[in-house]
């Protein structure tokens, strides 16, 4: 169908722009650990249906979302100077285009996945609270999938990555301000072992 082709072309173009930017941007100082303090998603740790939290490690909050990473590698994901420490991508309003500032992070995660074929990554898409709930679930899924496609085009195996969308149901920050909304329009990287 023509429309499908258009959508795919749009996505492909997006990813190509992203890769071009990745090549252009080297050693930019922008790899802050944008997961922020205290606004970490609890995803992957919460026993939805009575399962106890897998790692049980509230003592090291940064392990959250890293259960699927070998213990010896985790430091790479928690070192703020390492692009792997960027484990949340924030999106503009109503958009599933990955901002170019994340090129390095996408490259780094894709490379890590390519080099560790047994590691599994779950991408969790989220939106702010504006709009209707089910539409937002679909929008969050589109965000998660756009990150997945970028990772796959950068070398990750599609089979290593699953997506889920919580729409507006799991905000990183409560509140009804633009600042809270900006924190909630996101895709979280959850390296899982289950």
């Amino acid at each position, binding site marked *: *169908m023509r*429309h*499908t*082709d*258009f*959508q*795919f072309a749009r996505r492909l173009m997006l990813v190509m722009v992203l890769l071009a930017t990745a090549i252009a941007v080297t050693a930019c100082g922008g790899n802050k650990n944008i997961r922020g303090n205290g606004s970490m998603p*609890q*995803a*992957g*740790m*919460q*026993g*939805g*249906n009575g*399962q106890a939290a*897998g790692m049980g490690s509230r003592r090291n909050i940064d392990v959250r979302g890293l259960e699927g990473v070998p213990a010896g590698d985790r430091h790479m994901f928690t070192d703020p100077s390492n692009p792997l420490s960027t484990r949340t991508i924030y999106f503009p309003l109503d958009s*599933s285009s990955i901002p170019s500032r994340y090129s390095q992070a996408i490259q780094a995660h894709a490379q890590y996945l390519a080099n560790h074929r047994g590691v599994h990554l*779950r991408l*969790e898409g989220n939106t702010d*609270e*504006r*709009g*209707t*709930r*089910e*539409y937002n*679930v*679909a*929008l969050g*899924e*589109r965000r*998660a*999938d*756009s990150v*997945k*496609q970028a990772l796959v085009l950068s070398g990750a195996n599609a089979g290593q990555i*699953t*997506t*889920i*969308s*919580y*729409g507006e*149901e*799991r*905000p*990183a920050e*409560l509140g*009804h301000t633009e600042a809270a909304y900006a924190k909630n329009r996101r895709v979280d990287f*959850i390296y*899982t072992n*289950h």
Partner: protein
Amino acid sequence: MYNNLRSFAVGFAALCLMTLAVSPAQAALQVNITQSSNSAIPIAISPFGSSQGQLPVDVAQIASRDLASTGLFEVFPRSNMLARPSSPERVNYNNWRTQNVSNLVVGSATPNGQGGYKITFNLLDVAQGRPVASYQLNAGPNQLRQAGHMVANLIYQRFIGKKGYFLSRIAYVTVTGNSLENRKFRLVVSEYDGSHPATVYSSQDPIMSPSWSPDGSKLAYVAFNVYKGISSIRVQDLATGNVRTIVSGPGVNGAPAFSPDGNRIALTKSTNGDSNIFVYNLASGQMRQLTHSGSIDTAAAWSPDGSHIAFTSDRGGQPQIYEMSSQGGQVQRLTYDGQSNRRADFSPDGESLAMVQKSANGFRIAIMDLSNNNVRIVSDGPMDDSPAFAPNGQVILYAKQGGSNSLATVSIDGEAKSTLSQAGEVREPAWGPLGY
């Protein structure tokens, strides 16, 4: 206006109590009428008499509350009544005329010998000084509360010309907990006004999108399992608590909607980030894909005759409401008003569509007349969601979000409004069938 003298009896033996497999109830929603119709009908319901002293349930009060909750009736307070007659012969019409009560209901209940009651009541036209309608109904053991709702249904129908919805139930999702790490989601079923709530499913993980089966016996809804990273559509039998999971996995498994015949569920699934509408056949377990777009297609709503499905799609850029045959095929765009439109619900007569319209004033509930595509806004916004028609089509129940997070009702003419609230968030209302 209502002066044609008619007498009729209404059978009540079939009134059944729906049982629920539930957890302990939580606090009921607090109802506040925020705006009444300018042409509210003045009515008084005198306490019902009984040959055995006081009735165990105040039937007249239940009926009065039901009628008042609509905003369409101005119910005369019992405390102002000069007398409390329970049969037409004992009514002093002059008393009521001086108090400007133009409609009066009097009635009584007598044991029916089977543990229940035979209830007789009359609607009196005070100006004319005579009864204009007489009703009789049978309430089984422990059915006096339902009988009160039925009294209200009959009076409502007499004046409004539509069946009353006071025996219907609603489902909604509540969220409690003071932090993101400590939230509790509950799927709750209550009477139409939020009273007698019962939790039918609860989880630390999000619960979404309840949809009633047409007979009111089941709810379909979405449950997430954050630990596993999956979403599921579950169909839960309310009497037994039995759950059937019809689709489950990563990606989108959402927006279930029972077909009007109860045999199928329209739902949303995603592939490669694109959400599409499917129809799941409950008997065969087969699933058929209806849309195949590389865009977001979600929030399916069946036309009451089952022939069409309206849905939300951003295939044209912004989300709008589209319609197709329930077999799939050609798609037609329905909405052009406002900046965008989403989450359609058909009125029970199939003649209009409620939706969430985005404009400069935020997200508000809109009703579109499908015969001429005229759209009117009936809520204030700025972040309203989840419009659901009452089973008689006269009221829309929806969620107010972005702060107070309560439920609200509005009559389809926009005149009568109420809110239903409690501590914590209340969201995603779904209105069940009439219940009688």
